[in-house]
């Protein structure tokens, strides 16, 4: 498996598209935060802080990070299918499960670390205007983000599964469109908002009793920052379960496929 990682890492380091996708999405996220908080504006003379941006994660950083995970997982896992260079992994004498899990684990590493960077770095430009502030403690945001990254893991495994199942299609973009459609159609009246990925991300960054007001140039927020342990545990459990399911199904299809 180490050889598969080394050769894949050699290739991925030179894959400009991954960097471009991350940079574009990161820029979009930063722009959304800045336009939502307008730290350069003088309307109400309010100074927004980094920790305030953390409270926005459910509507901003989280969906963008999930989108990054989706696109990148399909791109990284699928890039060698169209040109059939994945065949060399099998011809070189590696078992199918080694090839699959070697690639899948590397894909997960890339998507989770990319998503983590978006969650952590996107609000930082606000530090120049208002500093870190105390809207939300770092440990609170950190724990929510860690559970959120399990959701990113789930989405990555979903992308891997879709790629393996639909690999006969040479266009990864059709695959992405299908997956987005699938995720969107899971919206509606879910029994539990943690089940569909698009609502699960937001649910992790919801705060009970939220209210905010501007006073003497400061933004004062009132909310219950208590960590919703039940929600976090359920989300983590669901994410691990669904990630395992998608990965197992993908591994099965991969092992039975003809190349």
């Amino acid at each position, binding site marked *: 498996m180490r*050889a*598969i990682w*080394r*050769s894949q890492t*050699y*290739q991925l380091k*030179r894959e400009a598209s991954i960097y471009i996708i991350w940079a574009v999405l990161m820029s979009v996220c930063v722009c959304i935060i800045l336009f939502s908080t307008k730290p350069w504006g003088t309307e109400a003379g309010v100074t927004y802080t980094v920790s305030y941006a953390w409270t926005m994660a459910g509507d901003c950083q989280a969906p963008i990070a999930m989108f990054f995970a989706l696109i990148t997982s399909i791109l990284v896992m699928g890039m060698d299918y169209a*040109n*059939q*260079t994945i*065949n*060399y*992994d*099998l*011809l*070189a*004498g*590696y*078992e*199918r499960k080694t090839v699959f899990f070697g690639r899948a684990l590397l894909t997960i590493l890339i998507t989770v670390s990319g998503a983590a960077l978006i969650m952590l770095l996107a609000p930082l430009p606000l530090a120049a205007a208002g500093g870190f502030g105390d809207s939300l403690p770092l440990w609170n945001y950190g724990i929510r983000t860690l559970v959120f990254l399990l959701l990113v893991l789930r989405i990555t495994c979903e992308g891997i599964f879709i790629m393996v199942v639909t690999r006969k299609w040479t266009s990864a973009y059709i695959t992405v469109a299908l997956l987005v459609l699938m995720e969107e159609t899971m919206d509606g009246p879910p029994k539990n908002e943690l089940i569909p990925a698009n609502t699960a991300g937001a649910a992790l960054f919801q705060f009970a009793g939220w209210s905010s007001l501007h006073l003497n140039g400061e933004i004062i927020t009132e909310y219950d920052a208590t960590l919703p342990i039940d929600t976090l545990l359920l989300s983590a459990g669901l994410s691990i379960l669904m990630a395992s399911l998608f990965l197992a199904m993908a591994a099965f299809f991969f092992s*039975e496929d*003809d*190349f």
Partner: protein
Amino acid sequence: MDRERLISVNNLTKKYKFGTAVANVTFDIQRKHIYGLVGPNGAGKTTIMKMLGGLVIPSGGQIHFYDGERELSPEQARRQMSFMIETPYLRRDRTARQNLEKLRLLKNVANPQVIDDVLEIVGLSDVPKNKTVRKYSLGMRQRLGIANALMSHPQCMVLDEPINGLDPTGIVEIRELLQRLNRQDGVTILISSHILSELANLCTDYIFLHHGRIINSISGEELAKVCGSNLLINTEQNQLAQQLLSDQLGIAVLKREDGQLRIPDAVDCKKEILNVLVNNGVTLLHMSEETQDLETYYMSLIQDAD
């Protein structure tokens, strides 16, 4: 136990929804031989090679790999083999060296110098280093595929039409390379090609495929004996002649497309054949010896099979 046997294929079968690509194929690959896999398009050559490489899962049968008397797992065996199946699988937006470097890391070949060495061997060392594979001709991509196959110094090479797209000089170079690898390094080769004259110059053994089945397998020595020992006859009553020869001499007589009769391996039986025809009042119009090369032998096999 045959210590010279490298691969043993038993009743190998591959079925798809649209039909059977390979049906009950059985053959052995002996060490240090060069096997030509011969057959028309759709005969199953590439499918067999893909099953040997683990790209396609057989529907039935077994493939066994050996190292002397010890049986190897397919993965262990493939680490000692190299494959070039269909067109070489390459990243077109990368250079030759970048493609080979990735594969060098995959195959755990320690020495980075091997890339320059194999590019030199296949005649690509003068190509600008920053030229991407997208700008390569078909022949250059084939050479690059062969370079990849050479990188790990394999014991056995499986090559699917490696000379496809090469110019005449390239064909000779690759043929000489493969011969050198076989003679000097003892590399076993399984090669398919539509250029039968090239296979005739290279191979020690032949496996003939048609509609997914082996219709014949023969060594080069046996082929040399068979070729040039056929009789061609034409009579006024070819059908009667065919019947008489079959009944009285037990000879399998084959009718060619042009109506003449071909009697395989019968040059030594001319006298007996003439006697039968004359004694039964069949007028002989023409008799000659047929000199066959691999191509005509192959065409006669296909004709018989159809």
